[in-house]
């Protein structure tokens, strides 16, 4: 192999900028004195913003996929959109974190460093097209999260959440690896295209080894996207972790997991979809039910959001599941990704609301939040927008997310899709109850503690308004997501 190494640096400039920011952040953290540590935060914020510039550029120019490293790394519109999403979410998480980090004597530098590392992992996953790269991406994305979830060092809950997260996370990583090893063992290849070619040549798509590999990988990723039965860590970890981290976990980590799932199952295992499709259908349906029914029971807002995000994961999974059975991957991926994107912003908003309200009421029991909307109407409006968007009420973004999912479920009219559609419809109604409950409490219940002064820091307002704008925009002009369809199409053609 003496091929000349030529790298299209422009294509990977996003990743490079993030790497530079990571290095810069940790260096600044070492150099700067305690007083000027806030510069670290500014630097990280600036870096993540700058990394968005190439995204815009690439979106405008890359009409077809750019393939790097002999097919291991691909930059296409699909990955570009997701990278944009990851960066934006990370940026919002930074904003969400600033007050949080400043309020306690936490290590600032490392915090940003770790989040940026996780971001880098996510970026890598988006473009990876071989087993090794995707594995590194996944590990890079989740490794820092183990630490971040235990960030509240003095808080036993946080520790506990972290160890659970960690142990299960490592276990899942090893399962993924075992699955990879089987895949490698059968085909001898690690680049997806080559694996598929080898499998088609040998006709081993449905062989037990490949299916076992798929299942192990599914289990591993199932942990990341927290679907039943791999979800049990999520409520505990979410509850224990600092709120911004929880938000990041439930959005970015989950998105990374879904991305890995989409890439692996539609690029590698797509021909055995009839087998894993059925499993995914089951998982998706059960996840919705268990997530929503458990969420009904929650009094802790974070646990409530944890179960809500489990249920939402069921929704995101549903189109993929049906796509596996019908082979209509294009449609399924489009629906999942659209859901994922809209979900990202409305869930970010929901966490923001919970963040504000917990601080305002000094209570992690939603039933003590009565009347808070009167003390802070802006939070009240945020809560209405985000929670009802999660419930899927038009004209808020969530409806379109649900709509595309239903659309893809019913597209072929086969029985699995139809049943999942009905399950989804029932769950949409169940979910409404607990989403509406929060709005009900803060708008309609009386304050148990008299008038409370609620201050919403400006950074949080920024997060709120960005999320709100995107959520509402998504609901009123869902046409903006037609790009995602185009991107999914390109993703499959490459």
């Amino acid at each position: 192999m003496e091929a000349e190494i030529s790298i299209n640096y422009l294509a990977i400039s996003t990743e490079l900028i993030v790497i530079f920011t990571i290095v810069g952040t940790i260096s600044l953290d070492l150099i700067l004195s305690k007083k000027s540590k806030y510069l670290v935060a500014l630097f990280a914020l600036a870096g993540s913003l700058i990394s968005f510039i190439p995204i815009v550029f690439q979106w405008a120019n890359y009409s077809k996929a750019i393939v790097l490293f002999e097919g291991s790394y691909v930059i296409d519109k699909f990955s570009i959109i997701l990278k944009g999403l990851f960066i934006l979410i990370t940026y919002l998480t930074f904003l969400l974190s600033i007050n949080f980090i400043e309020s306690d004597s936490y290590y600032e530098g490392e915090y940003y460093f770790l989040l940026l590392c996780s971001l880098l992992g996510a970026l890598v996953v988006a473009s990876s097209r071989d087993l090794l790269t995707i594995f590194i991406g996944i590990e890079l994305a989740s490794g820092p999260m183990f630490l971040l979830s235990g960030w509240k060092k003095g808080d036993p809950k946080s520790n506990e959440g972290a160890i659970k997260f960690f142990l299960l996370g490592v276990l899942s990583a090893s399962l993924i690896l075992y699955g990879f090893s089987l895949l490698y063992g059968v085909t001898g290849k690690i680049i997806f295209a080559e694996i598929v070619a080898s499998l088609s040549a040998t006709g081993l798509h449905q062989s037990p080894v490949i299916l076992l590999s798929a299942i192990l990988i599914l289990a591993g990723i199932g942990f990341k996207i927290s679907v039943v039965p791999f979800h049990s860590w999520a409520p505990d970890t979410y509850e224990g972790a600092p709120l911004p981290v929880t938000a990041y976990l439930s959005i970015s980590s989950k998105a990374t997991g879904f991305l890995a799932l989409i890439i692996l199952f539609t690029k590698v295992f797509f021909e055995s979809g009839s087998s894993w499709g059925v499993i995914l259908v089951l998982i998706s349906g059960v996840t919705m039910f268990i997530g929503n029914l458990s969420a009904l029971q929650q009094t802790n807002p974070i646990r409530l959001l944890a179960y809500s995000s489990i249920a939402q994961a069921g929704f995101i999974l549903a189109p993929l599941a049906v796509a596996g059975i019908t082979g209509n991957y294009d449609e399924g991926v489009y629906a999942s990704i659209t859901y994922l994107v809209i979900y990202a912003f409305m869930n970010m908003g929901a966490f923001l609301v919970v963040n504000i309200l917990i601080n305002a009421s000094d209570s992690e029991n939603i039933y003590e939040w009565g009347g808070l909307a009167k003390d802070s109407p802006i939070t009240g409006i945020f809560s209405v927008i985000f929670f009802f968007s999660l419930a899927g009420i038009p004209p808020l973004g969530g409806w379109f997310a649900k709509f595309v999912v239903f659309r893809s479920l019913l597209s072929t009219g086969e029985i699995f899709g139809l049943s999942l559609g009905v399950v989804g419809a029932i769950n949409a109604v169940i979910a409404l109850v607990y989403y509406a409950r929060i709005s009900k409490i803060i708008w309609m219940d009386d304050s148990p503690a008299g008038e409370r002064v609620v201050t919403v820091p400006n950074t949080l307002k920024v997060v709120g308004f960005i999320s709100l704008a995107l959520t509402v925009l998504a609901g009123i002009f869902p046409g903006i997501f037609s790009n995602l369809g185009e991107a999914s199409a390109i993703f499959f053609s490459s």
Partner: protein
Amino acid sequence: MSAQPFLIAAAGLFSMGIYGILVRRNAVMVLLSIELILNAVNINFVVFNQMLSDVLLNGQIFTVFIITIAAAEVGIGLAIVLMLFRNRQTANINEFDLMKW
């Protein structure tokens, strides 16, 4: 030479790891059990590489990466366990059930 004994050994290692995770109470031991699983994977990769005579040595490269990552993860894991130990004076994971509903 057949690859089968190696694969069986790897599978055995894997199972032992799983057993360890489930049964050991000490967090450090659980960590070590996870290492067992990772090593089972490593064996798999190396054996497959040899078996398939992969000239690109993908399996071996993979193994190197896994070892690295495993090291990193153990580092993280130990950090968390340490933190826990500091707060709770125990490394027995069975006692971590603060959040049991």
